[in-house]
Every structure is written in structure tokens, then in C-alpha cells.
């Protein structure tokens, strides 16, 4: 199955990248400020948000992780079918 690299694809990918940016920032911040309750709360909030967006992305397009880490059942081996990050 080939995926349609249209506006909707880039929009959803961008949404995921934006959420992940927040999570990377908070991850590094918490590494040096582990007792910041507000940051912990924000981290948890974005983890929940990420789950929903990842589910949407993976069911619409392709798995993001290999070795069985993606939370979607496999009906065909999309991992090698869909384009790679430097190809989109």
C-alpha cells in the first residue's frame, strides 16, 4: 500500500513533530529539574495528546516504530513500503 503524500499527510506529520518537540524539550528540562511538578504535569498531558495523534497517523499512514513497538495490528508489511523520512 502506498501512502498519499498530500497536504493532510504533511499536516498530521507536522502536528506530531510539534508535540514531540514539546516532549523533547520537557524531557531535557526534567533531566535537570526533576522536581518541577508543573513540568511533570505538562509532560503527562502531552504524552496523552501524543497517543491520540500517533494512533491517527499509524492507522491512516504507516507504523512509526519497528520491532513490534507500534500499537497497531499488522495486516501487511508497510514498514518497507512507505517512503523514508528523507524521501518525503
Amino acid at each position, binding site marked *: 500500500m502506498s501512502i498519499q503524500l498530500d497536504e493532510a499527510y*504533511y499536516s498530521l*506529520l*507536522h502536528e*506530531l*513533530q510539534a508535540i*514531540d*518537540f514539546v516532549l*523533547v*524539550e520537557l*524531557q*531535557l*528540562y526534567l*533531566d*535537570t*529539574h526533576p522536581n518541577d511538578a508543573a513540568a511533570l504535569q505538562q509532560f503527562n498531558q502531552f504524552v496523552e495528546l501524543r497517543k491520540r495523534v500517533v494512533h491517527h497517523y499509524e492507522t491512516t499512514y*504507516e*507504523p*512509526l*516504530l*519497528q*520491532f513490534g*513497538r507500534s500499537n497497531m495490528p499488522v495486516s501487511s508489511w508497510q*514498514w518497507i513500503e*512507505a517512503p*523514508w*523520512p*528523507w524521501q518525503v
Partner: protein
Amino acid sequence: MWIYEKKLQYPVRVSKCDPMMAKLLMEQYGGADGELAAALRYLNQRYTIPDKVIGLLTDIGTEEFAHLEMIATMIYKLTKDATPDQLKAAGLGPHFAAHDSALFYTNANGVPWTASYIQAKGDPIADLYEDIAAEEKARATYQWLIDLTDDVDLQDSLKFLREREVVHSLRFREAVEILKEKQSEKRFY
């Protein structure tokens, strides 16, 4: 262990074929202050750094591999449609002779990456100061690279990477303070 996620950390778009810029970007691929050096430096230092800082070195080291993939994507996209003549005109003739269009871990001058670019002293302050310096040198390199291109799409991705170096430097500075606090605590026992 590590698991690969099939997406870039931040979008990489280029507006034209530009092998000359690709050559310059190799400084951040396989250069002394590049992303490969950064990832390998931090992930190697983390085994002997005090526990309070292991998480930071692990996470920043991991993020550096995401940056390495972004730089690779830039180089790939800037050269994929270039002819051998265009590569030669951009100073990539020697690269093409050895690697065709394949990427390779060299700096902008074609010098292969070497472990002598990085250090692990086993002294936490020495290691963290090296890490801070590496981030500042990478930040400066990104600024020169932004100044060297008029491709606004490429500049956008490079600006993202420049800002990440600023954040990493800040976090490493905080790590130094955490270790200093810990050292001064011990004197009271």
C-alpha cells in the same frame, strides 16, 4: 537499546539542487563539532558520569542522532539531482570519485571523521565543559551555514538545529551546577 522512529524530528525542505551547500553541510555531518561527534561523545561519556547526569547525556545523545538524520536529509536532497559535472563544479569531484552520491562521514573539506575529535576524561566537570564547548561550536557553525545559503527552506531547518544547540548548552551548564552543589554538600559530612 535504541528503537528507530520513522520520521524526522523537524521537517527538512530544500528549494533547489545545491551541491555546494551540501558540501558545506558535511561539516555538521562528519566534522569535529558535527552531529555524529556529538552523539558519540555524549553516549560514550554517560557510562562514567555521576548518576544525576546520566539521563541528560543519554537523552541529548539520542537527540543528536535525530539531528544527524536531518543533516543527512539535507545533503541527500541537495545532491540527489546533481550531475557529476555539477558535483565537480561544487568541489565534490573527489567525493564523487570515492563515494558516488553516497553520504560519508567527512567534514566540509572531505577529511574523514575521527574519534580524536571527541574526548572522555572520566572527570565529570572536564567532560561537561567539553560538552558545553561542543554545543557552542556547533551553534556557531550553524550560524555560518545559515549565512552561507539564501534557501529559506534550508535556513528554517538550520535555525531549528541552531536553537537546539542553545538548549543543549543550557542544560549542560545546569548539569555542571548540579554536580557542584553535590560536591559542596559532601564537605559538610
